[in-house]
């Protein structure tokens, strides 16, 4: 297709310097550079930003050049912060100095108006001619945004000798033929509209400027508009849109394909920074780039959009990344630069499965012929009677699904989103995916639909396996991926939901491929129907955590790491082949087949753990002759509450339980004691961990009682003791400084309060597409895999860990750092107090503490505490409390309905105590991202 742009697009004009006074742009960086005529191309003058003379003046020699290319319809103004920050950064002792050159592409910004429509190959040549003229010979890192990303990538591919790294912000290099191009561009591309939208009016420019989150300041908008004041200045904007290769016949299509393919051969470090709120370059294009640059560091800035360079501190991120990715760039030959992607220190030992390192599906192979029970579902979806699955059947079904999924195009490394309720189906699909090397994406239903959507879109799965609710949401919300239904669907529903396969078909197809000799076809000898198994260091799963702060994060585990989770569970609670296990906590329930246990799922709604009753537990224990019971804290509360319904027979069954685990969050000693009455023969355990590191420490009911003596001796609560590190786990403390930041070198010195830093074979590998978050989570740690938990606490002389709160909730008063949990526990020791939260108001360093409490009986309206209650609270608190407020119910984080939303509460208390109305603290639902 060709376009006739308005006549004004043919008007030529010389390059010029930008007007002075543009917000955030130092005119000293602006230069005009004329590239002499060559071949058919006459001489062309560019406007560009360049900090070379500023670096000279500082007397520093740059390690290389960052070559920045803007997209459409911006200009080098987009990179003003990087030029400024890199120059300031260069002045810092010990920091890398980078020359930054940010060009205005021809016909754009303040560069020359050539009067001709430029195509992609032309633009890549233009940029090459400019860098040749500039004599840019040293190491170069490219940085591009939007179509400038394509142009800069073209330059990168054409200059392998100079290229040291590649950085891209929201860019697309490939448009799948089957998929329509993004709607906003489609509109602009309609011949009737293109000229009017892009050139004759500033419509396209203004639309783009409106994409910033938060909105751009007036001054910044004025900066972006400066070179595009009238139609004669906007020809390039129309030219760029007209140059979008909408189909295979477009003049720029071959060049775009060349660049897209060329990226696959680049092995230099790469950084992709992405704003997912982009109506044009959505996550699908990020996924495409990740596919081409699998070694790239990726950070998705949740909430940021197309103008990610305006929405977030990309400049700081870029400079930080370069420091880490290219430590010795000046000396390193290009080929060695890729070595930054080397595996972590403990990885080399884990490249092969061995008797010491068994894959997760090992028991499905070892017990493939066993008629013994693998799974019991007390309340299966299939009907009222409990359903029992033998190891033989489970193993065969996993094999069939694995073969069927392979046949349906599910490949090693593909991400598969599992939107299936826990149960036998989920278990079989999960192990099938693991076996064929697909990466399972599992999100907690507690995230809510919006959180789930973010999780699914963020992970960008190639396949979605779901039941009706999940598939409907996938359809309604436009989640990506091939859809596979675990339930049979009538053709209309199937079409409506875009379902390509059902699980039944997958199983049948798998069985067909494996041949009719069902007994002979298990995971061990499935022949060509199954691909080779994944290696231990391959990615196995992405678990979306319902983090108490910020948007959900995808936590990536490798096979070796998930196997280590299994092994630490086995060792800590002595579970293995033949153990009867009541799996009332979904994440651990899924590990049953890996452990070789006889796992029984009690009758409960897994998304609502409070539906589990004491009788339900007893029935499950009896059904599997279980000796081990894993439950979530919410389930335990209800089990204890319904203990009165237990029959003598139930009690006899429960008496056989030897180990009881509150998984998911520590529970109180009182609750553990109540469970002990129901299961008198069981040792109660409560572990400490998080999605990033399940089971880091563990403590028994007896241990809690021992620990309490320490608090009693101190005359105040020292926090919540969560016991000693489990098996191979290590726990250190990064001490808090006077500002409440965890800056201390991680150490095991007892009695020091700081951020809890953990290491274990079963720790997460990294966060998915959150490079910055990941860097923060390993900041200042030693070699090996460590994780900053975001929790604060201390170690005692016996090496036990005590939790004192979240790092984000640490308060700093005039006398120093204060952690909330100990004070809250002391306040909760008052008979008239049910629950307490202690939060800080005022500036860090001189904060005042406010206690917000629920009373027994609860009040009906939020109010000041009576003078008696306030006096009682002050008497038991070892830190001064400025105010005591009483609320009917403390607001809890919706994603953790047991965790008090302290961040919200602190803001609420601050507002109430600055003289505003005393409003009820509202539920946190309104703040869901």
């Amino acid at each position, binding site marked *: 297709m060709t376009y006739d742009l308005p006549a004004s697009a043919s008007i030529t004009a010389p390059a010029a310097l930008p007007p002075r006074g543009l917000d955030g742009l130092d005119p000293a960086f602006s230069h005009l550079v004329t590239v002499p005529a060559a071949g058919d191309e006459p001489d062309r003058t560019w406007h560009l930003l360049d900090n070379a003379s500023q670096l000279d003046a500082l007397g520093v020699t740059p390690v290389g050049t960052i070559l920045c290319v803007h997209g459409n319809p911006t200009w080098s103004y987009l990179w003003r912060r990087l030029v400024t920050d890199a120059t300031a950064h260069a002045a810092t002792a010990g920091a890398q100095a980078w020359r930054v050159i940010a060009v205005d592409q021809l016909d754009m910004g303040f560069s020359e108006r050539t009067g001709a429509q430029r195509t992609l190959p032309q633009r890549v040549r233009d940029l090459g001619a400019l860098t040749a003229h500039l004599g840019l010979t040293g190491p170069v890192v490219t940085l591009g945004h939007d179509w400038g990303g394509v142009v800069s990538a073209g330059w990168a591919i054409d200059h392998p000798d100079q290229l040291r790294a590649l950085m891209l912000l929201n860019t697309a290099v490939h448009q799948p033929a089957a998929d329509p191009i993004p709607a906003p561009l489609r509109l602009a591309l309609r011949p009737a509209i293109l000229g009017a939208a892009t050139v004759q009016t500033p419509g396209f420019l203004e639309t783009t400027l409106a994409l910033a989150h938060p909105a751009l300041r007036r001054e910044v908008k004025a900066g972006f508009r400066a070179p595009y004041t009238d139609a004669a200045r906007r020809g390039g904007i129309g030219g760029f849109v007209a140059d979008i290769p909408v189909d295979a016949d477009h003049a720029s299509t071959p060049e775009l394909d060349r660049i897209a393919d060329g990226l696959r051969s680049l092995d230099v470090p790469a950084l992709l920074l992405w704003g997912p709120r982009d109506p044009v370059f959505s996550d699908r294009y990020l996924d495409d780039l990740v596919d081409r640059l699998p070694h790239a560091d990726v950070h998705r800035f949740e909430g940021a959009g197309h103008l990610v360079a305006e929405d977030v501190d990309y400049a700081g991120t870029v400079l930080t990344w370069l420091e880490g990715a290219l430590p010795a760039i000046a000396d390193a030959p290009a080929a060695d630069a890729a070595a930054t992607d080397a595996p972590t220190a403990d990885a080399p030992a884990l490249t092969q499965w061995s008797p010491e390192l068994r894959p997760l599906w090992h028991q499905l192979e070892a017990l493939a012929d066993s008629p013994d029970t693998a799974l019991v579902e007390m309340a299966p979806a299939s009907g009222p009677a409990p359903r029992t699955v033998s190891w033989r059947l489970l193993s065969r079904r996993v094999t069939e699904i694995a073969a069927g999924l392979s046949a349906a195009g599910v490949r090693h490394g593909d991400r598969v989103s599992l939107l299936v309720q826990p149960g036998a189906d989920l278990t079989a699909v999960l192990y099938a995916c693991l076996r064929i090397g697909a990466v399972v994406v599992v999100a907690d239903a507690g995230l809510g639909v919006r959180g789930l959507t973010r999780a699914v879109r963020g992970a960008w799965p190639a396949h979605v396996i779901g039941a009706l609710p999940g598939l409907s949401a996938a359809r309604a919300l436009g989640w990506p991926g091939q859809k596979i239904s675990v339930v049979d669907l009538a053709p209309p529903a199937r079409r409506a939901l875009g379902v390509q396969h059902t699980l039944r078909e997958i199983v049948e197809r798998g069985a067909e491929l494996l041949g009719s000799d069902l007994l002979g076809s298990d995971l061990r000898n499935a022949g060509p129907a199954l691909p080779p198994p994944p290696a231990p260091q391959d990615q196995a799963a992405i678990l979306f955590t319902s983090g108490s702060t910020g948007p959900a994060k995808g936590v990536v585990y490798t096979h070796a790491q998930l196997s280590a989770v299994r092994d630490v569970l086995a060792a800590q609670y002595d579970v293995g082949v033949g153990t009867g296990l009541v799996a009332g906590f979904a994440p651990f329930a899924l590990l049953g087949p890996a452990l070789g246990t006889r796992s029984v799922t009690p009758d409960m709604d897994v998304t609502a753990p409070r539906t589990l009753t004491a009788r339900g537990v007893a029935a499950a224990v009896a059904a599997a002759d279980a000796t081990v019971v894993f439950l979530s804290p919410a389930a335990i509360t209800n089990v204890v509450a319904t203990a009165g319904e237990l029959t003598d027979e139930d009690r006899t069954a429960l008496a056989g339980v030897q180990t009881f685990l509150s998984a998911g969050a520590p529970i109180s000693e009182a609750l553990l004691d109540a469970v002990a009455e129901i299961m008198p023969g069981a040792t109660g355990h409560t572990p400490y961990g998080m999605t990033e590191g399940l089971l880091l420490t563990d403590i028994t009911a007896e241990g809690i009682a021992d620990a309490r003596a320490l608090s009693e001796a101190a005359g105040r609560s020292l926090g919540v003791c969560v016991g000693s590190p489990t098996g191979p786990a290590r726990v250190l403390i990064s001490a808090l400084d006077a500002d409440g930041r965890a800056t201390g070198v991680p150490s095991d010195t007892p009695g020091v309060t700081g951020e809890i830093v953990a290491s274990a074979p079963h720790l997460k590998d990294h966060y998915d597409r959150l490079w910055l978050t990941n860097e923060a989570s390993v900041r200042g740690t030693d070699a090996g895999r460590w994780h900053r938990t975001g929790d604060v606490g201390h170690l005692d002389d016996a090496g036990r860990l005590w939790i004192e709160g979240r790092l984000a909730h640490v308060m700093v008063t*005039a006398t120093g750092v204060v952690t909330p949990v100990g004070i809250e526990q002391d306040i909760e020791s008052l008979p008239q107090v049910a629950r307490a939260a202690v939060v800080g108001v005022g*500036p860090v360093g001189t904060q005042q503490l406010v206690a917000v409490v629920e009373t027994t009986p609860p009040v009906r309206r939020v109010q*000041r505490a009576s*003078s008696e209650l306030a006096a009682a609270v002050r008497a038991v608190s070892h830190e*001064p409390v400025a*105010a005591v407020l009483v609320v009917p119910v403390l607001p809890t984080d919706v994603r953790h309905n047991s965790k008090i939303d302290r961040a919200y509460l602190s803001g609420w208390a601050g507002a*109430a105590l600055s003289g505003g109305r005393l409003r009820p603290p509202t539920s946190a639902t309104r703040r869901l991202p």
Partner: protein
Amino acid sequence: MKVLITGASGFLGRTVVAHALAAGHEVRTFQRRPSGVDGASDELGSVTDAGDVERAMDGMEAVIHLAAKVSLAGDLAEFAAVNITGTQTMLDAARRHGVQRFVQVSSPSVAHAGHSIVGDDALPADPEHARGDYARTKAAGELVALAADSPELHVVAVRPHLVWGPGDTQLVERVVERARAGRLPLLGDGTALIDSTYVDNAASAIVAALHRADVAHGQAYVVTNGEPRMVAELLEGICLAAGVRPPRWKVPASLARAAGGAIERVWAVRPGVDEPPMTRFLAEQLSTAHWFDQRRTRRDLDWTPEVSVEDGLARLAVSYR
């Protein structure tokens, strides 16, 4: 040290004299009425009379200047004569007599433009935006005093916030009287967090400023107990200590501010009548947070308050028995 203390017959002044004597200083007081404090010599006179001031300053080494016209309403010229010109007269005389230390007792209201103060340190005195004639003239007085700071004469400004204690005719007596008459409302929900200063803490801080003038000169310091309380809790504590019923009825804060402004204007045309029942300044004081960062104060003055709010209320209760 030979210390001249002005305004020593007042509630805070008497306590400062006692603390200065206890610290071993030789104290001369200067005000219109006898101070009534044992151990100090009285020089009677007014800071608005240069002759009186000249006489009082003779032979002194240090000055603690408390004398001020304190009221929630009144005539601007009167405020200015005492709070600005009076301070200037004191400083001029101090310089002539070779006085080395001068503690200007000021007020946090000199920098309070009506907004909430949440953990701020002392901001510069602002005669233009401070609320009410008292605060404006005290602000100008503080600026005059700090401008006089020199290597020969070290000037420190101390701003005790909301001083209270037994014998207080300002805050405590007003609160108790109004509560007894059923005329004390809570503004809003009474949850604004406010700092206050027990009188002995204010006095010890002022004497500490005298001792630390070599370090602290040229600067202003807010002084408080460092234990902010919700305004309703503080008023309730005072009422309970005095044996009167705490306030129970509420007035919306915005209404009180508007009404305070109106009442203030009405009272301005009735000079000589007792102060208005509500002023805009008072409404703001009782309905917006104002509590302070005390770190610099405590460090520079090498001082910590000795009497907690709780202990202070207990002492107040004893005084009412």
